[in-house]
Protein backbone atom coordinates (compact mmCIF):
# COMPACT_ATOMS: atom_id res chain seq x y z
CA UNK A 1 0.00 0.00 0.00
CA UNK A 2 1.31 3.43 -0.94
CA UNK A 3 0.25 6.67 0.64
CA UNK A 4 -0.69 8.01 -2.78
CA UNK A 5 -3.21 5.20 -3.16
CA UNK A 6 -4.95 6.36 -0.02
CA UNK A 7 -5.25 9.94 -1.25
CA UNK A 8 -8.14 9.29 -3.59
CA UNK A 9 -10.05 7.23 -1.06
CA UNK A 10 -12.11 8.61 1.75
CA UNK A 11 -10.81 6.68 4.72
CA UNK A 12 -12.89 5.06 7.42
CA UNK A 13 -13.88 8.02 9.56
CA UNK A 14 -15.52 9.92 6.72
CA UNK A 15 -17.07 6.95 4.94
CA UNK A 16 -20.35 8.18 6.38
CA UNK A 17 -22.08 4.85 6.73
CA UNK A 18 -23.19 2.88 9.73
CA UNK A 19 -25.80 3.59 12.39
CA UNK A 20 -26.82 7.25 12.91
CA UNK A 21 -24.01 8.36 10.61
CA UNK A 22 -25.75 11.67 9.81
CA UNK A 23 -24.64 12.78 13.29
CA UNK A 24 -22.11 10.23 14.54
CA UNK A 25 -19.27 10.22 12.01
CA UNK A 26 -17.07 7.58 13.58
CA UNK A 27 -16.30 5.58 16.70
CA UNK A 28 -12.81 4.99 17.95
CA UNK A 29 -11.07 3.01 20.67
CA UNK A 30 -7.39 3.29 21.48
CA UNK A 31 -5.20 1.35 23.89
CA UNK A 32 -1.90 2.55 25.36
CA UNK A 33 0.60 -0.25 25.97
CA UNK A 34 4.27 -0.40 26.96
CA UNK A 35 6.87 -3.13 26.75
CA UNK A 36 7.99 -4.31 30.19
CA UNK A 37 11.72 -4.42 29.45
CA UNK A 38 12.24 -0.87 28.18
CA UNK A 39 12.01 2.50 29.91
CA UNK A 40 9.10 4.75 28.88
CA UNK A 41 9.72 6.88 25.79
CA UNK A 42 11.08 9.99 27.54
CA UNK A 43 13.88 7.96 29.11
CA UNK A 44 14.63 5.87 26.02
CA UNK A 45 17.97 6.24 24.28
CA UNK A 46 18.05 6.34 20.48
CA UNK A 47 19.14 2.71 20.60
CA UNK A 48 16.19 1.76 22.84
CA UNK A 49 13.77 3.44 20.44
CA UNK A 50 15.28 1.71 17.44
CA UNK A 51 15.16 -1.61 19.31
CA UNK A 52 11.50 -1.16 20.19
CA UNK A 53 10.56 -0.26 16.61
CA UNK A 54 12.52 -3.19 15.20
CA UNK A 55 11.16 -5.69 17.76
CA UNK A 56 7.55 -4.67 17.16
CA UNK A 57 7.92 -4.81 13.39
CA UNK A 58 9.66 -8.16 13.43
CA UNK A 59 7.23 -9.88 15.81
CA UNK A 60 4.03 -8.45 14.34
CA UNK A 61 4.71 -8.79 10.64
CA UNK A 62 4.59 -12.58 11.05
CA UNK A 63 1.07 -12.71 12.47
CA UNK A 64 -2.15 -12.87 10.46
CA UNK A 65 -3.71 -9.70 11.88
CA UNK A 66 -0.84 -7.63 10.50
CA UNK A 67 -0.28 -9.58 7.28
CA UNK A 68 -2.14 -7.06 5.22
CA UNK A 69 -0.88 -4.06 7.16
CA UNK A 70 1.77 -1.66 5.90
CA UNK A 71 4.51 -0.44 8.22
CA UNK A 72 5.62 3.15 7.62
CA UNK A 73 8.84 4.51 9.03
CA UNK A 74 7.53 7.91 10.14
CA UNK A 75 11.03 9.31 10.53
CA UNK A 76 11.65 8.72 6.83
CA UNK A 77 8.39 10.24 5.62
CA UNK A 78 8.26 13.72 4.08
CA UNK A 79 6.55 16.39 6.18
CA UNK A 80 3.59 16.43 3.80
CA UNK A 81 3.13 12.66 4.12
CA UNK A 82 3.13 12.89 7.90
CA UNK A 83 0.57 15.65 7.75
CA UNK A 84 -1.45 13.54 5.34
CA UNK A 85 -1.61 10.70 7.89
CA UNK A 86 -2.60 13.17 10.63
CA UNK A 87 -5.42 14.50 8.45
CA UNK A 88 -6.67 10.93 7.99
CA UNK A 89 -6.52 10.41 11.77
CA UNK A 90 -4.13 7.48 11.32
CA UNK A 91 -1.34 9.06 13.37
CA UNK A 92 -1.32 11.74 16.05
CA UNK A 93 0.29 15.14 15.69
CA UNK A 94 2.67 14.11 18.46
CA UNK A 95 3.95 11.17 16.41
CA UNK A 96 4.19 13.32 13.27
CA UNK A 97 6.15 16.10 14.98
CA UNK A 98 8.47 14.17 17.30
CA UNK A 99 11.92 12.85 16.45
CA UNK A 100 13.75 9.54 16.48
CA UNK A 101 12.76 6.02 15.47
CA UNK A 102 8.97 5.74 15.25
CA UNK A 103 6.62 3.80 13.02
CA UNK A 104 2.98 3.21 12.24
CA UNK A 105 1.28 0.09 10.92
CA UNK A 106 -1.95 0.67 9.00
CA UNK A 107 -4.29 -2.02 7.70
CA UNK A 108 -5.83 -1.99 4.22
CA UNK A 109 -9.24 -0.74 5.35
CA UNK A 110 -7.74 2.00 7.53
CA UNK A 111 -9.67 0.56 10.50
CA UNK A 112 -6.58 -0.35 12.47
CA UNK A 113 -3.50 1.69 13.16
CA UNK A 114 -0.64 0.89 15.50
CA UNK A 115 1.71 3.73 16.44
CA UNK A 116 5.10 2.73 17.81
CA UNK A 117 7.12 5.12 20.02
CA UNK A 118 4.50 7.79 20.49
CA UNK A 119 3.89 8.85 24.12
CA UNK A 120 3.79 5.14 24.93
CA UNK A 121 5.64 2.34 23.17
CA UNK A 122 2.40 1.19 21.54
CA UNK A 123 -0.76 3.08 20.74
CA UNK A 124 -3.29 0.75 19.14
CA UNK A 125 -6.31 2.35 17.50
CA UNK A 126 -9.42 0.96 15.85
CA UNK A 127 -11.79 3.29 14.04
CA UNK A 128 -15.23 2.43 12.64
CA UNK A 129 -17.67 4.46 10.62
CA UNK A 130 -20.87 5.54 12.40
CA UNK A 131 -21.88 4.70 15.98
CA UNK A 132 -20.08 1.36 16.39
CA UNK A 133 -18.20 1.38 19.69
CA UNK A 134 -18.80 -2.28 20.48
CA UNK A 135 -17.48 -3.42 17.10
CA UNK A 136 -14.41 -1.21 17.59
CA UNK A 137 -13.82 -2.64 21.07
CA UNK A 138 -14.18 -6.25 20.00
CA UNK A 139 -11.68 -5.77 17.16
CA UNK A 140 -9.11 -3.91 19.27
CA UNK A 141 -9.49 -6.37 22.14
CA UNK A 142 -8.63 -9.19 19.77
CA UNK A 143 -5.66 -7.32 18.26
CA UNK A 144 -4.40 -6.55 21.78
CA UNK A 145 -4.61 -10.27 22.70
CA UNK A 146 -2.64 -11.18 19.61
CA UNK A 147 0.10 -8.58 20.25
CA UNK A 148 0.34 -9.64 23.88
CA UNK A 149 1.31 -13.16 22.78
CA UNK A 150 4.32 -11.66 20.99
CA UNK A 151 5.69 -9.35 23.70
CA UNK A 152 5.45 -8.72 27.43
CA UNK A 153 3.45 -5.67 28.43
CA UNK A 154 4.30 -3.52 31.46
CA UNK A 155 1.52 -4.55 33.83
CA UNK A 156 0.98 -4.00 37.55
CA UNK A 157 -1.23 -6.27 39.68
CA UNK A 158 -3.08 -3.37 41.26
CA UNK A 159 -2.74 -0.55 38.72
CA UNK A 160 -3.20 -2.51 35.50
CA UNK A 161 -1.45 -1.52 32.27
CA UNK A 162 1.33 0.95 33.06
CA UNK A 163 1.58 4.08 30.92
CA UNK A 164 4.05 6.97 30.65
CA UNK A 165 1.39 9.39 31.85
CA UNK A 166 -0.56 8.44 35.00
CA UNK A 167 -3.74 9.79 33.39
CA UNK A 168 -3.83 6.72 31.10
CA UNK A 169 -2.94 4.00 33.60
CA UNK A 170 -5.25 1.02 34.25
CA UNK A 171 -7.10 0.13 31.06
CA UNK A 172 -4.97 2.49 28.96
CA UNK A 173 -8.16 2.96 27.01
CA UNK A 174 -9.64 6.04 25.35
CA UNK A 175 -13.10 5.59 23.83
CA UNK A 176 -14.33 8.35 21.57
CA UNK A 177 -17.09 9.25 19.17
CA UNK A 178 -16.75 11.93 16.51
CA UNK A 179 -20.03 13.84 16.19
CA UNK A 180 -21.23 16.51 13.77
CA UNK A 181 -23.39 19.05 15.61
CA UNK A 182 -24.02 22.05 13.35
CA UNK A 183 -27.52 22.87 14.65
CA UNK A 184 -26.47 22.88 18.31
CA UNK A 185 -23.63 25.24 17.37
CA UNK A 186 -25.99 27.49 15.40
CA UNK A 187 -28.47 27.58 18.31
CA UNK A 188 -25.61 28.37 20.72
CA UNK A 189 -26.54 25.34 22.81
CA UNK A 190 -23.27 23.50 22.38
CA UNK A 191 -21.44 24.96 25.40
CA UNK A 192 -24.29 23.95 27.67
CA UNK A 193 -24.23 20.38 26.43
CA UNK A 194 -20.48 20.09 26.86
CA UNK A 195 -20.44 21.62 30.29
CA UNK A 196 -22.85 18.90 31.39
CA UNK A 197 -20.53 16.29 29.86
CA UNK A 198 -17.53 17.58 31.75
CA UNK A 199 -19.45 17.12 34.98
CA UNK A 200 -19.69 13.40 34.26
CA UNK A 201 -15.98 13.09 33.42
CA UNK A 202 -16.27 13.14 29.66
CA UNK A 203 -13.83 15.22 27.64
CA UNK A 204 -14.80 17.16 24.52
CA UNK A 205 -12.18 18.00 21.91
CA UNK A 206 -12.06 19.28 18.35
CA UNK A 207 -11.57 17.19 15.24
CA UNK A 208 -7.84 16.76 15.53
CA UNK A 209 -7.66 16.05 19.23
CA UNK A 210 -6.25 17.97 22.13
CA UNK A 211 -6.07 21.70 21.62
CA UNK A 212 -7.57 21.65 18.13
CA UNK A 213 -10.46 23.93 17.23
CA UNK A 214 -13.90 22.52 16.71
CA UNK A 215 -13.46 22.68 12.95
CA UNK A 216 -16.55 22.26 10.82
CA UNK A 217 -18.75 21.66 13.89
CA UNK A 218 -17.07 18.29 14.52
CA UNK A 219 -16.46 17.29 18.14
CA UNK A 220 -14.88 14.28 19.81
CA UNK A 221 -16.43 13.04 23.03
CA UNK A 222 -14.27 10.71 25.10
CA UNK A 223 -13.71 9.24 28.57
CA UNK A 224 -11.30 10.94 30.95
CA UNK A 225 -10.94 8.22 33.58
CA UNK A 226 -9.02 5.07 32.64
CA UNK A 227 -8.52 3.38 36.02
CA UNK A 228 -11.05 1.61 38.27
CA UNK A 229 -13.57 0.87 35.51
CA UNK A 230 -13.76 -2.07 33.13
CA UNK A 231 -13.38 -1.55 29.38
CA UNK A 232 -17.09 -2.35 28.97
CA UNK A 233 -17.93 0.33 31.57
CA UNK A 234 -15.94 2.89 29.62
CA UNK A 235 -17.64 1.94 26.34
CA UNK A 236 -20.97 2.31 28.11
CA UNK A 237 -20.02 5.62 29.73
CA UNK A 238 -19.30 7.24 26.36
CA UNK A 239 -21.93 5.29 24.44
CA UNK A 240 -24.69 6.23 26.88
CA UNK A 241 -24.55 9.95 26.09
CA UNK A 242 -24.65 9.48 22.32
CA UNK A 243 -28.41 8.80 21.94
CA UNK A 244 -29.13 11.93 23.99
CA UNK A 245 -26.71 13.92 21.85
CA UNK A 246 -28.40 12.65 18.69
CA UNK A 247 -31.79 13.66 20.10
CA UNK A 248 -30.57 17.16 21.05
CA UNK A 249 -29.07 17.74 17.61
CA UNK A 250 -32.19 16.46 15.81
CA UNK A 251 -34.40 18.67 17.99
CA UNK A 252 -32.17 21.67 17.33
CA UNK A 253 -32.45 21.03 13.59
CA UNK A 254 -36.24 20.76 13.80
CA UNK A 255 -36.33 23.95 15.82
CA UNK A 256 -34.24 25.80 13.22
CA UNK A 257 -36.65 24.73 10.50
CA UNK A 258 -39.71 25.61 12.56
CA UNK A 259 -38.39 29.03 13.58
CA UNK A 260 -37.28 30.19 10.19
CA UNK A 261 -36.93 27.67 7.43
CA UNK A 262 -36.34 30.38 4.86
CA UNK A 263 -33.41 31.86 6.81
CA UNK A 264 -31.84 28.43 7.27
CA UNK A 265 -32.37 27.58 3.62
CA UNK A 266 -30.74 30.91 2.74
CA UNK A 267 -27.68 30.17 4.91
CA UNK A 268 -27.29 26.67 3.49
CA UNK A 269 -27.71 27.89 -0.10
CA UNK A 270 -25.20 30.70 0.39
CA UNK A 271 -22.69 28.23 1.81
CA UNK A 272 -23.25 25.94 -1.18
CA UNK A 273 -22.96 28.86 -3.59
CA UNK A 274 -19.71 30.08 -2.07
CA UNK A 275 -18.17 26.60 -2.23
CA UNK A 276 -19.15 26.33 -5.92
CA UNK A 277 -17.99 29.76 -6.97
CA UNK A 278 -15.17 30.95 -4.71
CA UNK A 279 -11.90 31.77 -6.47
CA UNK A 280 -9.78 31.22 -3.38
CA UNK A 281 -10.78 29.71 -0.07
CA UNK A 282 -9.04 28.69 3.18
CA UNK A 283 -9.46 25.24 4.68
CA UNK A 284 -11.17 26.71 7.79
CA UNK A 285 -13.78 28.50 5.71
CA UNK A 286 -14.25 25.38 3.59
CA UNK A 287 -14.90 23.26 6.69
CA UNK A 288 -17.30 25.85 8.03
CA UNK A 289 -19.31 25.98 4.78
CA UNK A 290 -19.20 22.22 4.13
CA UNK A 291 -20.66 21.75 7.60
CA UNK A 292 -23.67 23.92 6.69
CA UNK A 293 -24.12 22.11 3.38
CA UNK A 294 -23.89 18.72 5.10
CA UNK A 295 -26.69 19.73 7.45
CA UNK A 296 -28.64 21.08 4.45
CA UNK A 297 -28.46 17.71 2.72
CA UNK A 298 -29.51 15.87 5.87
CA UNK A 299 -32.52 18.18 6.17
CA UNK A 300 -33.52 17.74 2.53
CA UNK A 301 -32.79 21.39 1.69
CA UNK A 302 -30.24 20.40 -0.95
CA UNK A 303 -31.32 17.69 -3.33
CA UNK A 304 -28.58 17.40 -5.91
CA UNK A 305 -25.72 16.40 -3.64
CA UNK A 306 -24.99 13.19 -1.71
CA UNK A 307 -23.55 12.88 1.80
CA UNK A 308 -20.57 10.72 0.70
CA UNK A 309 -19.52 13.50 -1.72
CA UNK A 310 -19.53 16.09 1.06
CA UNK A 311 -17.71 13.75 3.44
CA UNK A 312 -15.04 13.23 0.82
CA UNK A 313 -14.65 16.99 0.36
CA UNK A 314 -14.05 17.48 4.10
CA UNK A 315 -10.86 15.45 3.85
CA UNK A 316 -9.77 16.16 0.29
CA UNK A 317 -9.66 19.91 0.94
CA UNK A 318 -7.25 19.54 3.89
CA UNK A 319 -3.80 21.01 3.07
CA UNK A 320 -1.79 17.79 2.65
CA UNK A 321 -4.59 15.96 0.82
CA UNK A 322 -5.08 18.84 -1.58
CA UNK A 323 -1.39 18.78 -2.48
CA UNK A 324 -1.33 15.00 -2.88
CA UNK A 325 -4.37 15.05 -5.15
CA UNK A 326 -3.10 17.90 -7.29
CA UNK A 327 0.37 16.35 -7.32
CA UNK A 328 2.08 19.64 -6.47
CA UNK A 329 3.66 21.26 -3.44
CA UNK A 330 1.68 24.45 -2.84
CA UNK A 331 2.06 27.36 -0.40
CA UNK A 332 -0.95 28.67 1.52
CA UNK A 333 -2.01 31.23 -1.10
CA UNK A 334 -1.78 28.73 -3.94
CA UNK A 335 -3.53 26.09 -1.88
CA UNK A 336 -6.46 28.46 -1.42
CA UNK A 337 -6.73 28.87 -5.19
CA UNK A 338 -6.31 25.14 -5.85
CA UNK A 339 -8.89 24.36 -3.16
CA UNK A 340 -11.42 26.66 -4.83
CA UNK A 341 -10.69 25.00 -8.19
CA UNK A 342 -11.11 21.55 -6.72
CA UNK A 343 -14.42 22.45 -5.04
CA UNK A 344 -15.62 24.07 -8.24
CA UNK A 345 -14.91 20.94 -10.29
CA UNK A 346 -16.37 18.54 -7.72
CA UNK A 347 -19.55 20.51 -7.07
CA UNK A 348 -20.18 21.61 -10.68
CA UNK A 349 -19.93 18.02 -11.81
CA UNK A 350 -22.77 17.11 -9.47
CA UNK A 351 -24.86 20.02 -10.73
CA UNK A 352 -24.44 19.11 -14.38
CA UNK A 353 -25.64 15.55 -13.77
Amino acid at each position, binding site marked *: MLLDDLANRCGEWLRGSGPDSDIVMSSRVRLARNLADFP*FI*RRCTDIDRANIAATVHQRLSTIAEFNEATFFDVNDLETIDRQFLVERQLISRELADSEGARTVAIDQLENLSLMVNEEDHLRIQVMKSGFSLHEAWSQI*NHVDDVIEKQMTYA*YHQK*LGYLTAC*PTNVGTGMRVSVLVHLPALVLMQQIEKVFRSFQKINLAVRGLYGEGSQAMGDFFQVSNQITL*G*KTEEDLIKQVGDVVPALITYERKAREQLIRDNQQKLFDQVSRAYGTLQNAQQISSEETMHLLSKVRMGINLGLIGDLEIPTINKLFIHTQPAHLQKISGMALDTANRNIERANYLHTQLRRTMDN
Partner: protein
Amino acid sequence: MNCQKCHKPATFHITDLTGDELLALHLCADCAKEYLNPEEDESQIDAPTLTNLLTKQLKLGQTAEELAELDNKECPICGITFFEFRQEGRLGCPYDYTHFADELEPLLVNVHAKIEHVGKTPKQGAYDAESQTELIRLRREMKKAIETEDYEAASKLRDQIRQIEEKG
Protein backbone atom coordinates in the same frame (compact mmCIF):
# COMPACT_ATOMS: atom_id res chain seq x y z
CA MET B 1 -13.99 44.76 5.00
CA ASN B 2 -14.35 41.29 6.45
CA CYS B 3 -13.67 40.11 9.99
CA GLN B 4 -10.06 38.99 10.37
CA LYS B 5 -11.09 35.89 12.29
CA CYS B 6 -14.15 34.47 10.56
CA HIS B 7 -14.75 36.32 7.24
CA LYS B 8 -18.12 37.75 8.27
CA PRO B 9 -18.48 41.50 7.61
CA ALA B 10 -16.40 43.47 10.12
CA THR B 11 -18.44 45.95 12.13
CA PHE B 12 -15.96 46.61 14.96
CA HIS B 13 -12.68 48.39 14.34
CA ILE B 14 -10.49 48.17 17.41
CA THR B 15 -7.10 49.69 18.04
CA ASP B 16 -5.30 48.02 20.90
CA LEU B 17 -2.08 48.96 22.58
CA THR B 18 -0.08 45.79 23.20
CA GLY B 19 3.30 46.51 24.70
CA ASP B 20 4.73 49.28 22.58
CA GLU B 21 2.85 48.42 19.45
CA LEU B 22 -0.50 49.47 18.12
CA LEU B 23 -2.64 46.60 16.98
CA ALA B 24 -5.46 47.34 14.54
CA LEU B 25 -8.24 44.79 14.50
CA HIS B 26 -11.28 44.50 12.27
CA LEU B 27 -13.83 42.10 13.68
CA CYS B 28 -17.46 41.08 13.36
CA ALA B 29 -19.79 41.49 16.35
CA ASP B 30 -19.26 37.93 17.61
CA CYS B 31 -15.49 37.93 17.39
CA ALA B 32 -15.29 41.41 18.87
CA LYS B 33 -17.32 40.28 21.86
CA GLU B 34 -15.00 37.35 22.34
CA TYR B 35 -11.93 39.55 21.93
CA LEU B 36 -13.10 42.14 24.41
CA ASN B 37 -14.49 39.66 26.93
CA PRO B 38 -12.39 36.57 26.55
CA GLU B 39 -14.15 33.73 28.30
CA GLU B 40 -11.81 31.53 30.20
CA ASP B 41 -10.96 28.44 28.27
CA GLU B 42 -13.23 25.81 29.75
CA SER B 43 -11.08 22.87 28.88
CA GLN B 44 -8.27 24.44 30.82
CA ILE B 45 -10.42 24.75 33.91
CA ASP B 46 -11.99 21.34 33.80
CA ALA B 47 -8.93 19.42 32.72
CA PRO B 48 -6.07 20.96 34.69
CA THR B 49 -2.70 19.81 33.47
CA LEU B 50 -1.07 17.04 35.35
CA THR B 51 1.90 19.17 36.35
CA ASN B 52 -0.36 21.89 37.80
CA LEU B 53 -2.31 19.30 39.69
CA LEU B 54 0.86 17.86 41.16
CA THR B 55 2.25 21.21 42.20
CA LYS B 56 -0.98 22.16 43.90
CA GLN B 57 -1.19 18.85 45.67
CA LEU B 58 2.40 18.94 46.89
CA LYS B 59 2.09 22.42 48.33
CA LEU B 60 -0.57 21.13 50.69
CA GLY B 61 0.94 20.05 53.96
CA GLN B 62 4.62 19.88 53.00
CA THR B 63 7.47 22.11 54.02
CA ALA B 64 9.96 23.48 51.52
CA GLU B 65 12.63 21.08 52.81
CA GLU B 66 10.35 18.08 52.47
CA LEU B 67 9.52 19.16 48.94
CA ALA B 68 13.17 19.60 48.01
CA GLU B 69 13.96 16.16 49.38
CA LEU B 70 11.08 14.62 47.48
CA ASP B 71 12.19 16.32 44.27
CA ASN B 72 15.60 14.66 44.63
CA LYS B 73 14.15 11.19 45.05
CA GLU B 74 15.40 9.11 42.15
CA CYS B 75 14.21 5.86 40.59
CA PRO B 76 16.97 3.21 40.92
CA ILE B 77 15.92 1.64 37.63
CA CYS B 78 15.56 4.48 35.10
CA GLY B 79 17.18 7.30 37.07
CA ILE B 80 14.32 9.79 36.72
CA THR B 81 13.93 12.18 39.67
CA PHE B 82 10.57 13.14 41.07
CA PHE B 83 11.37 16.71 40.04
CA GLU B 84 11.74 15.64 36.40
CA PHE B 85 8.45 13.80 36.53
CA ARG B 86 6.79 16.84 38.09
CA GLN B 87 8.15 19.06 35.29
CA GLU B 88 7.30 16.81 32.35
CA GLY B 89 4.26 14.96 33.62
CA ARG B 90 5.63 11.71 32.18
CA LEU B 91 7.17 8.84 34.10
CA GLY B 92 10.46 7.18 33.16
CA CYS B 93 9.78 3.46 33.47
CA PRO B 94 7.24 0.93 34.76
CA TYR B 95 9.08 0.65 38.09
CA ASP B 96 8.31 4.34 38.86
CA TYR B 97 4.79 3.27 39.77
CA THR B 98 6.33 1.18 42.57
CA HIS B 99 9.14 3.51 43.57
CA PHE B 100 6.95 6.64 43.70
CA ALA B 101 3.82 4.76 44.81
CA ASP B 102 3.12 6.98 47.85
CA GLU B 103 3.56 10.20 45.89
CA LEU B 104 1.49 9.00 42.94
CA GLU B 105 -1.45 7.68 44.91
CA PRO B 106 -3.11 11.04 45.72
CA LEU B 107 -2.62 12.08 42.10
CA LEU B 108 -4.27 8.90 40.83
CA VAL B 109 -7.18 9.40 43.23
CA ASN B 110 -7.55 12.95 41.96
CA VAL B 111 -7.58 11.95 38.29
CA HIS B 112 -9.40 8.62 38.37
CA ALA B 113 -11.25 8.62 41.74
CA LYS B 114 -10.33 4.92 42.12
CA ILE B 115 -6.92 3.31 42.25
CA GLU B 116 -7.57 -0.34 41.51
CA HIS B 117 -7.59 -1.73 38.01
CA VAL B 118 -10.65 -3.89 37.36
CA GLY B 119 -10.40 -4.29 33.59
CA LYS B 120 -8.61 -6.64 31.27
CA THR B 121 -5.51 -8.52 32.43
CA PRO B 122 -2.79 -10.00 30.21
CA LYS B 123 -3.42 -13.69 29.55
CA GLN B 124 0.24 -14.61 29.50
CA GLY B 125 0.95 -15.86 33.03
CA ALA B 126 4.72 -15.74 32.74
CA TYR B 127 5.15 -12.08 33.53
CA ASP B 128 8.14 -11.45 35.79
CA ALA B 129 8.32 -7.80 36.78
CA GLU B 130 11.67 -8.11 38.50
CA SER B 131 13.69 -9.48 35.61
CA GLN B 132 12.07 -6.99 33.24
CA THR B 133 12.95 -3.92 35.31
CA GLU B 134 16.37 -5.45 35.90
CA LEU B 135 16.89 -5.31 32.15
CA ILE B 136 16.07 -1.59 32.07
CA ARG B 137 18.56 -0.96 34.89
CA LEU B 138 21.35 -3.06 33.36
CA ARG B 139 21.01 -1.41 29.96
CA ARG B 140 21.28 2.00 31.59
CA GLU B 141 24.36 0.96 33.55
CA MET B 142 25.95 -0.47 30.45
CA LYS B 143 25.41 2.81 28.61
CA LYS B 144 27.02 4.68 31.52
CA ALA B 145 29.95 2.26 31.55
CA ILE B 146 30.51 2.83 27.85
CA GLU B 147 30.32 6.58 28.32
CA THR B 148 32.99 6.46 31.02
CA GLU B 149 35.01 4.03 28.88
CA ASP B 150 34.86 1.31 31.51
CA TYR B 151 34.72 -1.46 28.91
CA GLU B 152 35.35 -4.26 31.37
CA ALA B 153 32.22 -3.37 33.33
CA ALA B 154 30.31 -2.86 30.10
CA SER B 155 31.11 -6.31 28.82
CA LYS B 156 30.08 -7.91 32.13
CA LEU B 157 26.80 -6.01 32.00
CA ARG B 158 26.26 -7.09 28.41
CA ASP B 159 26.63 -10.75 29.44
CA GLN B 160 24.14 -10.27 32.25
CA ILE B 161 21.66 -8.65 29.85
CA ARG B 162 22.03 -11.50 27.36
CA GLN B 163 21.43 -14.04 30.10
CA ILE B 164 18.13 -12.46 31.10
CA GLU B 165 17.06 -11.92 27.50
CA GLU B 166 17.71 -15.56 26.66
CA LYS B 167 15.71 -16.77 29.64
CA GLY B 168 12.77 -14.55 28.68
